[in-house]
């Protein structure tokens, strides 16, 4: 295939290093998840037992159906835990490498901050900061492009949701200044 046939090329300057060391493997994570699910099943089972998991004069009590579901969840989690525990340890699949985790956190942390900021600044200002910040800091895109894109996107969202479809979003001090 000649290279001239390729017409769309998008490079990734921050691509994760392929030789990055593994942080953990799938078996360890699976065991942790199964253990957590088992604990969750016990907690929910206990709560449903407390609510009432038997029969009274009107039929099954409120906790009856969810109690037995907790038992099923707990049983399946225990089975999962046992089946992972006896798995051979050689050739285990990597869950995440250091480079991959770094990239995942590059999205997760800003998202977390965005959710926090939304409570004080309102959805639209928080969205503007997230998009502009993410594009320029993480994506290394020119600041003016980042600011312009963020402004246009947030304006479209505002007009679509707040004006056209009347969907109420969390508002902050900026919206208050503009009387909305």
């Amino acid at each position, binding site marked *: 295939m000649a290279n001239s046939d390729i017409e769309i090329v998008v490079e990734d300057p921050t691509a994760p290093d392929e030789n990055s060391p593994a942080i953990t493997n799938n078996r360890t994570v699976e065991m942790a998840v199964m253990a957590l699910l088992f604990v969750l099943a016990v907690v929910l089972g206990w709560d449903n037992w407390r609510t009432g998991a038997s029969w009274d004069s009107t039929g099954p009590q409120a906790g009856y159906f969810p109690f037995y579901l907790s038992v*099923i969840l707990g049983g399946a989690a225990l089975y999962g835990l046992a089946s992972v525990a006896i798995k051979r340890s050689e050739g285990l699949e990597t869950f995440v490498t250091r480079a991959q985790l770094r990239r995942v956190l590059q999205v997760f942390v800003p998202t977390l901050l965005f959710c926090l900021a939304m409570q004080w600044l309102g959805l639209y200002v928080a969205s503007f900061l997230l998009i502009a910040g993410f594009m320029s800091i993480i994506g290394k895109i020119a600041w003016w492009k980042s600011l312009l894109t963020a402004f246009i996107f947030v304006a479209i969202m505002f007009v679509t949701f707040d004006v056209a479809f009347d969907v109420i979003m969390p508002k902050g001090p900026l919206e208050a200044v503009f009387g909305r």
Partner: protein
Amino acid sequence: MEALGLLFHGFAVLFTWKIMALMMVGLVLGIFVGVLPGLGGPNGVAILLPLTFTMDPTSAIVMLSCIYWGALFGGAITSILFNIPGEAWSVATTFDGYPMAQQGKAAEALTAAFTSSFIGSLVAVMLITFLAPSIAGFALKFGPPEFFSVYLLTFCSFVGLGREAKHKTVISMALGLLLAGVGLDTVSGQLRMTFESSDLMRGVNFLVAVIGLFGISEILLTMEERLALRGHAARISLRTVWNVWKDLPKYWATLVRSSVIGCWLGITPGGAIAASFMGYNLAKRFSKDKESFGKGRIEGVFAPETAAHASGTAALLPMLALGIPGSGTAAILLGGLMVWGLNPGPLLFVEHKDFVWGLIASMYLGNVVGLVLVLTTVPIFASILRVPFAAIAPMIVVSCAIGAYAIQNAMFDIWLMLVFGVVGYVFKKIGIPLAPFTLALVLGSRAEDAFRLAMIGSGGTVKVFWSNGLVGSITTLAIVLLFWPLIDRVFEMFGRKPSPARA
């Protein structure tokens, strides 16, 4: 014939400027959703659902279903031009679609994909038109035991016929059913699993869960990988379309076979992924030239696309007729119906004829308009991929947050979305399937209500689930499907293989 009359009535409901415009908007948004990395059909429908809250149910469902068709069409673009399957059911399309693009036949491959998508959907919509009213009519005779046994059949077939480890499917389903029970118990008025949190009293909204599980987690997963793209651009000419279409009769057997497989796996919860692979494998098995598959054979595009789209569309049949969705996206559409106060199931055909037949008519029209739209706009949609992911990712996060917040106007839902995002990321990486979770979360309270009513009616004996031939056969079938892997193994031990389900 009655169905045809009602269908024409449905078209009459549909032909207004407003609904036609919404249909176009839905299709365009859907193709965007299908093409963009980190988004997909279920996620796109869930995020855009709040847009429809202020619409009447018919307009809303037409727009949402068109987002769904658009996403189905859009997935093929990235599979063929970039070798990146937008959805898991597009994986089989890459086997021959991408080699065709490498050989300079990208336009042919795309035309084949769009055309076969259209054919698969059309066959499934015709099935819905003629079968759904009869099933719904039959289901009107159902009481709580019958309904619970049908729910049980759905859950058991997910466990028994699913490709994932059985205990993982059980975990996913039990977790979904448990979360569906959080909050106020509508029968006794008691609070369950709320741990004195006022936010949990409202319950866990399944749309919030879906947005987190499919949207946020997909962004995290996409970000993990290298985001470089090298692909082909394609423009589809009328001549190419004509050349592909005139050869269609040659592939009639593949198209019919894939449509049947797709419809079957759509109605039973086999799913579009299984359908696309089965369609591809059978096309290869029945071909005289098996060796050419995987090297750019057009039949290798026709088969999986027809099957996947027939399956995706047929999954709406049990949703409309019985209130039981056959796929994750159908479950989200069902949730949408409930948001608008409609009760999916047999009564829908009696109480909301305009809505049901308007929706069915929109499936025909949406597919025709969608086909024309994708054939004419491929270069525009393919060029979306030039936009760097660093610009797309935060926009998707914002869209997810808007979607999650708008459902109940609750900040707590934003945090819940984030938690589900992490859960979805971990679950996907360790192979816990998410579709059974979504299904269970949607159907949980209905299944519990049916179970409790049936048990109250019988005075607490489970024999009620075998109290007549109908409920008895459905319950028995459910148990057979639950233990199907064991039964299959027993058959294998005796040297017989009863079905290709495990293939």
